[in-house]
C-alpha cells in the first residue's frame, strides 16, 4: 500500500544555492525513473523535460478540527491533476522559491485527504550555499533558517569555493540548527540520487525500522583537549555543571600527531565519522578505550568517575560534545592531575542564529496522559516556532514503542517495535526557533 504512493521530494534553498543545477542533474542522470517537476513561478528549467509545471505558492488556511494551518492550494490542484495519469512517473519533485516556507508544503501532505491517499512526502532537501550561508542566515525573513530547520537532507553546496576550515565551521553551524538531517558536501550540486530521493524523511514506519539511530541529534563535538598519556589506566571524572541537564556526555578519544591546532584539525573528519557513524559503545564498567569508539558517558552534578585505558603511550585528543563550562572533565593518574597540552573550542549552535535542534531523553516509561497533555500544550503555545519534531517514546499503556512526528501543530503517531526485554527509554527531538533545552528536558522528565 505504502509502495503504491508516489514519493514527493521538496527542494528548498536560497536563491543562487544551486537548486536549478541540482534539478537538472536529477532529471538528466541515468536512473530510469520518470520524475515530474513542479517548479516555482520564477523557475526556469533550461532542458526539455516533459513534465514541468509551474506553481504559484498560494497559501490558504485549512482547518482540521481545532487546528488551523496554512497549506498550499496550488500544489493541491497540480498534484491532483498529475495523479490522474496512470503510470506516468515515479517521483514528484517540488522546487520552491528561495523564500518559501516549507511548513505549509509539509502540512499540505499531512492534511489533504486525496494527497494523503495517493502520495507520501519523502523528504525535504535543502541546498545551502557554503559561500553565502552567513549572509543568508541574516536574512530578515528567517526563511533560510526555517529551510535548514525543516530539512531531512542538507546539501552543503559550492564547497569547492570555500576553504576547508570554513566548511567545518559551517557544518557545525548547520548541525546545531538541525541535528537530525543528513548533511552532505557537494560541488556544483552533484550528489548521488539515493541521497536525495527515497530518503523516507517523513515515514513513521521507516523511523521505526531505524529508531536506534534516527534520533541521534547533534552527534557533533564542541570541544577537544589533547593529553599526553602513559600506557595503563587513568581516571576521568565528569561533572555536570549547574544549570545544564544533559543526561550523557557523547565523546571519543583518538590518537593525535601533535598537541596543537594542526593536529586536531587533521582529525576532524575522523572524529566527525565517529560521532556520526559509530555505534554507541556500551560503557561496561565505565572503561573508555581510544580509537573509533563512540561513548556516551552518563553524567550528573555529583562527579562520576570512569577508567581511561591506554595501551600505547602517546598523544590523544578527546572530542566532547559539551565544553567544560557545561560538563567539566578532569583527568588524573595515581592521584595527580593530568593537564591538557592543548584545547580547542568549536563553534557550537548557541553562537549561530535562533534555530536549534534540541534532543531530550528520559530513561524508563512515561505517563501517556502527561506526555500527551504536555505535547499538546507545548505545540499549541509554540507551533509557529516548532518546525519539525520526532520522537520514540515508551509509555505506560503500550508494549510497543510509540513513534511520534510533527510539523508545527500537526502530529502523527504510530506504534513501533515492541520493547520486549530491551531497556525502555524515551527520546524526543525538537527543531525550531528559540528552544530551551534545559526547560524542555525538565518538562519531558516531569511526564514520567
Amino acid at each position: 500500500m505504502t509502495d503504491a504512493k508516489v514519493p514527493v521530494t521538496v527542494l528548498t534553498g536560497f536563491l543562487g544555492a544551486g537548486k536549478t543545477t541540482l534539478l537538472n542533474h536529477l532529471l538528466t542522470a541515468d536512473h530510469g525513473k520518470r520524475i515530474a517537476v513542479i517548479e516555482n513561478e520564477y523557475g526556469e528549467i533550461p532542458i526539455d523535460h516533459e513534465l514541468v509545471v509551474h506553481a504559484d505558492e498560494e497559501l490558504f488556511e485549512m482547518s482540521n478540527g481545532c487546528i488551523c494551518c496554512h497549506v498550499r492550494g496550488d500544489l493541491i490542484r497540480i498534484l491532483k491533476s498529475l495523479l490522474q495519469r496512470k503510470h506516468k512517473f515515479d517521483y514528484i519533485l517540488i522546487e520552491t522559491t528561495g523564500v518559501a516556507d516549507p511548513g505549509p508544503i509539509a502540512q499540505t501532505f499531512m492534511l489533504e485527504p486525496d494527497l494523503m491517499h495517493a502520495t507520501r512526502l519523502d523528504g525535504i532537501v535543502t541546498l545551502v550555499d557554503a559561500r553565502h550561508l552567513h549572509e543568508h542566515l541574516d536574512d530578515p525573513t528567517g526563511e533560510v533558517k526555517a529551510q535548514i530547520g525543516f530539512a531531512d537532507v542538507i546539501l552543503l553546496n559550492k564547497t569547492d569555493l570555500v576553504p576547508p576550515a570554513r566548511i567545518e565551521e559551517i557544518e557545525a553551524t548547520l548541525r546545531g540548527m538541525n541535528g537530525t538531517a543528513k548533511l552532505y558536501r557537494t560541488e556544483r550540486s552533484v550528489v548521488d540520487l539515493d541521497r536525495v530521493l527515497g530518503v523516507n524523511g517523513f515515514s513513521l514506519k521507516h523511523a521505526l525500522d531505524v529508531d536506534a539511530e534516527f534520533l541521534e541529534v547533534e552527534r557533533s563535538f564542541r570541544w577537544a583537549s589533547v593529553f599526553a598519556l602513559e600506557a595503563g589506566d587513568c581516571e576521568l571524572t565528569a561533572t555536570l555543571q549547574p544549570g545544564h541537564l544533559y543526561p550523557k556526555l557523547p565523546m571519543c578519544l583518538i590518537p593525535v600527531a601533535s598537541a596543537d591546532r594542526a593536529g586536531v584539525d587533521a582529525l576532524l573528519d575522523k572524529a566527525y565519522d565517529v560521532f556520526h557513524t559509530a555505534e554507541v559503545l556500551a560503557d561496561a564498567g565505565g572503561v573508555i578505550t581510544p580509537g573509533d569508539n563512540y561513548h556516551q558517558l552518563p553524567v550528573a552534578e555529583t562527579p562520576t568517575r570512569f577508567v581511561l585505558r591506554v595501551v600505547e603511550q602517546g598523544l590523544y585528543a578527546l572530542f566532547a560534545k559539551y565544553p567544560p563550562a557545561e560538563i567539566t572533565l578532569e583527568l588524573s593518574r595515581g592521584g595527580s592531575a593530568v593537564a591538557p597540552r592543548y584545547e580547542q573550542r568549536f563553534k557550537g549552535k548557541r553562537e549561530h542564529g535562533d534555530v536549534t535542534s534540541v534532543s531530550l531523553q528520559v530513561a524508563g516509561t512515561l505517563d501517556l496522559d502527561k506526555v500527551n497533555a504536555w505535547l499538546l500544550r507545548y505545540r499549541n503555545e509554540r507551533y509557529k516556532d516548532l518546525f519539525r519534531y520526532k520522537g520514540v517514546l515508551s509509555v505506560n499503556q503500550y508494549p510497543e514503542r510509540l513513534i511520534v512526528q510533527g510539523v508545527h501543530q500537526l502530529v502523527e503517531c504510530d506504534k513501533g517495535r515492541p520493547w520486549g526485554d530491551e531497556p525502555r527509554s524515551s527520546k524526543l527531538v525538537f527543531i525550531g526557533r528559540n528552544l530551551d533545552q534545559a526547560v524542555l528536558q525538565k518538562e519531558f522528565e516531569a511526564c514520567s
Partner: protein
Amino acid sequence: MKRKKSAVGLPALTRRWRADVGEYVRKLAPAPSGGLLAVATAADEIPLLDAATGATVHLLPGHAGGVTSLAWHPKRPFFASTGHDGHVRYWDAKTGQQLWASDTGNAWVEQVAFRPDGNLLAVASGRQVRLVQPDGDLARVITDHPSTVADIAWRPDRDELIVARYGGITVWSPGQEQPVKLLNYRGSVLRIAISPTGRFVATADQNSTVHFWRTKTWQDAEMSGYPHIVSSLSWDSTGRYLATDGGEDGMVWDCSDPGPEGRMPIFLKGDIDRLTRCVAFAPDGPVCATAGESGTVTINDVTNPTRIDVGNLGGSVTALAWGRDRLQLFAGAASGQVEAYAEH
C-alpha cells in the same frame, strides 16, 4: 416532452452501453445537437463517441500530457479542447480534423468556455485568460490575476466572464479594459457555476465552503460545514436549486426567495464511507444525478428526495453529464470506463 415516469417521479433509466477509454475521465461533453460525446481524459487523445452506441467515431490526437477541458460551440459541430501541452485546439467533430491550434505560452491550460453566442472562447492558462475568436484569432489577453485561474464561466444573461482565482472572483467584460468587479474572499476559489437566470454565481472553495454571490448586489453568503472540498456544482434548469458534492451525500441548496441562507440543504443519499464526487441536474425537471467513489450512479428527485440506482462503474466515478437531445445520462470513471443510461 412525454416521459415515462417511475413510481416516485423519476425517469426509468437503464444502461445502454459501456465503453473503455483507457484513462481517468476528466470531463464528458455531449454535443449540444446530440449524436456525439467528447471525452477528456488524463491521456493525450480525445475519444469522440457515438452517443447512441458508445462506438468510437474519431480518436483525435488531442494534447500531449492529457486533456483538461472541452467546450462545444453552442450551434455548430465544432469544439475546443485544452490540455497539458499548453495549447487550445479547435476540432471539426464531423471530419475529426483539427481546425486550428493556439499556443498559450504556459505549460498547462486548465479551462475553456464558449460565450453563449458562440462568437468568443475564453481560455484559462496560468494567470491569464485569453479570449479567442472561433477562427483562432486572439482577441485579448487578460493577465491581471494574482494567481492561477482555476475556473471560468460566461454569464448567460449579459456579456460578462467570471474568473475564479486565489482570493476571490473577478468579473470581466470582453470590451472593457478594467474589471467590472473584483470580489475578494480570503480563500481560493476552485469552481464556478452561474445559475441559468444569471441571478447567482455559486463558487466552490478550497476551504470546503460554497459561496453564493448575488449578481444584483454582489453580496455573498458562505455555506460551510462540508466534510470535504466541493469539486462539482450543478444548477437545475430554473435556477432554483444548486447541487454540490463535498461529502458522502450530495447536497442541494434551495435558492428560491429569500435565498439559501439559513436553510438546511436537501441531502441526496450517498453510499456509506464513500464520497459523492459528481452531481448533475437533468436538462429539465428537479432530477439530479449523483455518483462518486462507490461507483454507483444514482438519480434523485430533489423535491421528494428519493434515490434510484441506475448503474455502477465498479470504481470511482469522476464525471457525469446529461445529453441534450433526449433524456440520456453519461458517467465516466477513474478507470476509464464510460457508461450511458437512457429511457427504454
